[in-house]
């Protein structure tokens, strides 16, 4: 939606990521081509240096696919991704290997993101050696430094992941990502699998590291509260498209897409009062193999009109880089301010 600014670390233009459904041997022999599924369907945005862009949406919205595409794990079917001005191309493994010194990822599930057959020290040491981050003789010391950085003691290096708690594993995952000294991190639901008391520790750690190391972050999450806590900017995805993007504060105070509003209303509050209302958003996210016409949100939208069913909505600029892809974005923002706006901020 925005042109790549010089300050942008990551720029994404009209990105499309498609998957092919697997074929039977009969189809293979007959040469029938596989069905294609658009997980990311024409997305453009940038991430500025030292910025944390939050990316939210329901499962199936394509946010994880988008995050992985940024790291070249999936091939872009259309559009382009640049990192520090250099194109990310999944098929160019050698190019990518060089770029990966600067971009890394942390995964959701701390139970599966570490190789169970390797000790923490082996996992981290392998990264250091493979990318020649430091001299071979300094690997042990560097591992200890990394562990310390994420708040673990150096003697953890001898342990296998099975001997660590979820929070400790997530710290190791973070250390592994940081081992190559990247300046850009994709955090894919990094605290979703953690208990709240541990989640808070990790969130604080992430904040500290971001400030200390000057990291640029794409923070993928489904929990709005966590995203709000971490992000400076926010992008909301629905069925492969970004429906609203802008400064986090702006969106939280004046969400201008009915979907963003629905998401925010659906979050349970820490208010000890038995709620008396119906669900905000009805139904499920449609299958990406059967995308609705016009605005793809219209079947679930409380404001949907004929126009929404017929035409793809334009991107409406709402000032300060706040944009929403809705025919009635301004009306939606006004309605929000009138009904529940006061309660939110």
């Amino acid at each position, binding site marked *: 939606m925005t042109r790549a600014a010089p300050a942008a670390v990551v720029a994404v233009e009209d990105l499309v990521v498609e998957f092919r459904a697997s074929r039977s*041997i009969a189809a293979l022999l007959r040469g029938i081509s596989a069905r294609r599924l658009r997980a990311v369907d024409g997305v453009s945005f940038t991430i500025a240096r030292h910025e944390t862009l939050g990316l939210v949406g329901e499962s199936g919205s394509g946010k994880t696919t988008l995050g992985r595409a940024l790291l070249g794990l999936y091939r872009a079917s259309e559009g382009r991704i640049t990192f520090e001005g250099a194109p990310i191309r999944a098929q160019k493994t050698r190019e990518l290997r060089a770029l*990966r010194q600067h971009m890394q990822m942390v995964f959701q599930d701390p139970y599966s*993101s570490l190789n169970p*057959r390797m000790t923490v020290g082996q996992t981290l040491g392998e990264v250091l050696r*493979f990318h020649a981050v430091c001299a071979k003789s300094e690997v042990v010391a560097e591992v200890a430094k990394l562990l310390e950085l994420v708040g673990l003691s150096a003697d953890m290096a001898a342990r296998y992941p099975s001997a660590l708690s979820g929070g400790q594993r997530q710290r190791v995952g973070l250390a592994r990502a940081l081992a190559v000294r990247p300046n850009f991190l994709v955090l894919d639901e990094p605290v979703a699998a953690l208990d709240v008391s541990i989640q808070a520790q990790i969130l604080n750690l992430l904040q500290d590291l971001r400030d200390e190391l000057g990291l640029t972050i794409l923070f993928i999450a489904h929990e709005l509260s966590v995203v709000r806590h971490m992000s400076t900017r926010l992008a909301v995805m629905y069925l492969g498209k970004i429906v609203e993007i802008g400064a986090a504060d702006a969106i939280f105070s004046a969400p201008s897409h009915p979907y963003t509003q629905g998401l925010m209303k659906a979050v349970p509050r820490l208010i000890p009062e038995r709620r008396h209302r119906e669900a905000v958003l009805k139904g499920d996210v449609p299958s990406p193999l059967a995308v609705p016409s016009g605005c793809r949100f219209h079947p679930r939208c409380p404001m949907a009109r004929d126009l929404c069913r017929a035409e793809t909505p334009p991107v409406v600029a709402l000032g300060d880089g706040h944009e929403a892809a809705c025919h009635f974005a301004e009306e939606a923002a006004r309605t929000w301010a009138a009904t529940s706006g006061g309660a939110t901020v």
Partner: protein
Amino acid sequence: MTALTARSISAAFAVRGEIGRWSVTMKVGVSIVGLIVLAGIFAPVVAPYNPYFQDYDQVLLPPSWDHLFGTDMVGRDLFSRVIYGIRIDLTVGFIITYVPMIYGVALGALAGYFGGTFDVVLMRVLDTAIAFPFLVLIIVIIAILGPGVHNIYIAVFLVAWTMYARLARAEMLVERNKDYMLAARTLGYPTSRIIFRHALPNIINSSIVFSMADFVLNVLLLSGLSFLGLGVQPPEPEWGAMVAEGRDFIFDAWWICTLPGLAIVLTGTGLSLIGDGLSQRLGQRHQTIL
């Protein structure tokens, strides 16, 4: 690959002073198999007689201090033959277990990781191979190639790798989607490193556990084939062949088939116990704490 297997096994055994934590089954199994292997290695020392020498004045002697297991119908010392038989049975058993395993696991892992046409074709090959009864297939192949150890290697290999390929592929399909595999990719590791260094140690457990049972079955298979005259040829002291030779003498010289038969049973038991122990240990590693 073998180095990895060894590494994996040693990790499973947790050699770093953890023998005390082995289960009882594991200890008993390792002791039995260890003793048998040692006896095989030092066969020239352990065996009191030349296992091939026929002394026609000493035929069909019952077990005694001179001949611990007695003598057979052509006057050979049975104990010496059983001891030398270890070399044949365990060596052949090992080769027809682990060579197919190496190939099967590698192919299965590659198919599971890459998927696509290669995987589809491989799966159909596996389905076809598994549709035939294992033993019948092997007997048919040996009938075509002729009897003898080398043809057993070929015949068993042609059939046995499929089981490992299936196991490894299934495990790889699970493992492929785990985040640590993705993490290895984001770290820019080459695909071969990801498959063989990262995935393999995690997918090979089931194959190792299976291989122990397979090893037992393969020793029995070799004995069975030799029993049918399709395996190791006379006068080599193969256990199954010895049982076959002794079968006609079961009433008046029970020791000829009974004692080599016991050697088969003992070896099988030892290997099974190790298999049980291994599956417990390797299984534990994946258990999450309650």
